[in-house]
């Protein structure tokens, strides 16, 4: 589903709660599996959050990956030698796209995307959207896509909601 809302309306907080990174009330259930019934890190492997700013802690790209196919790299517009790149020279857009690939290594069942294309140009935004849609179809996974661009949300999501004054409203 697509999710929009004014800055500060709590979209990011909502995603963080779904990934169990934020204290929250209520129960969160995935296919009858309650969040509290499995260890938090296992839950986060299933319900994966891609934050608006990704962080990198090793020196090179490759060290953050365990396995990666050339096909998925190409799908987001990278060639194989990007693995040797140093983190310091990545642009924010490159970080965002590589961050998605890094996250998908866990093969999550739910993707939580927090303004994932904010730093991407038009071409890379298209690649990113297509890549995510393909993943969702291949793994029969689902996603919550947070963004401000309503045209984009219409492209990627059949259902669209907005957070207005702390409530979820259908915007179609």
């Amino acid at each position, binding site marked *: 589903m697509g999710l929009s809302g004014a800055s500060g309306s709590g979209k990011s907080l909502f995603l963080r709660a779904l990934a169990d990174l934020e204290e929250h009330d209520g129960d969160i259930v995935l296919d009858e599996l309650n969040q509290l019934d499995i260890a938090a890190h296992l839950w*986060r492997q299933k319900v994966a*959050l891609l934050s608006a700013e990704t962080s990198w*802690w090793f020196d090179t790209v490759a060290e953050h990956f365990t396995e990666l196919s050339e096909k998925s790299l190409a799908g987001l517009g990278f060639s194989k030698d990007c693995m040797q790149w140093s983190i310091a020279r990545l642009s924010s857009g490159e970080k965002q796209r590589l961050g998605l690939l890094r996250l998908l290594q*866990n093969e999550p069942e739910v993707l939580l995307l927090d303004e994932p294309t904010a730093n991407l140009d038009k071409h890379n935004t298209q690649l990113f959207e297509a890549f995510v849609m393909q993943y969702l179809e291949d793994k029969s996974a689902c996603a919550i896509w947070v963004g401000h661009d309503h045209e984009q949300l219409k492209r990627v999501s059949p259902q669209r909601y907005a957070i207005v004054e702390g409530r979820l409203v259908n915007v179609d």
Partner: protein
Amino acid sequence: MLIELSSLDLALAAILVLLLGVLSTLMKLGISRQLYIAAARTTVQLLLIGLVLKSLFASTSMAFILLIAFIMISVAGWEILSRQKRKLKGWWGFGVSTGSLFVSSFLITLLCLFTVIQADPWYSPQYAIPLLGMLLGNTMTGIALGMDRLIQNAWQQRPIIEQRLMLGQTADESISDIKREAMRAGMIPIINSMAAAGLVSLPGMMTGQILAGAAPVEAVKYQILIMFMITSGTGLGVISVLWLISKRLFDERERLCFKRLLK
């Protein structure tokens, strides 16, 4: 023969510390106040202990010696805490630092008194007190450094820790690099001392013993014993501190929990 120091000699050294303080103020390094307080404390504390040390060593009451040890450990724990920029809230901060000193210094001293020194009685103050003192003095440096580095780095690298959590790593994995870095910071002083001993530095206790007329080889053996005890004590102390604090930094859902830190 010991050359006697005049008050003038001490004043000269004090002026150097004073100059350092002035320099720090001029360069806005913000350490002068702490420096002056510590210098004043060292003067007063050493003068006082110098006066009572003889009667302390003459004491034969186990309860009294244990009380002294208890006071020494609590003070060292308190000092570790006062060197921290950010610390755990409530009794946790004091508990973690004194607890780790208990493991690193008190237990190691006991072990050494019973198995190596075997004085009669085992709590003979002329062995027990200086031994505990040397261990505390050195391990508290390591523990304070390791603790400070762990909490500071976790605080500054919050985005990285959370990123690693988002990628499905356990709390332990997400802070593992910071822990390794803190362990290194805590152990560097004692590893330096061991590496430099005899080549760069002449350890104080050994030198003192030799100057006072002890056989050099005996003095050296004591020094090696002390060095190894300090090293293992520091290592154990830093490990327990890192373990306790990194547990405390995460809640039961493996979320970073900085509200447990004092601002």
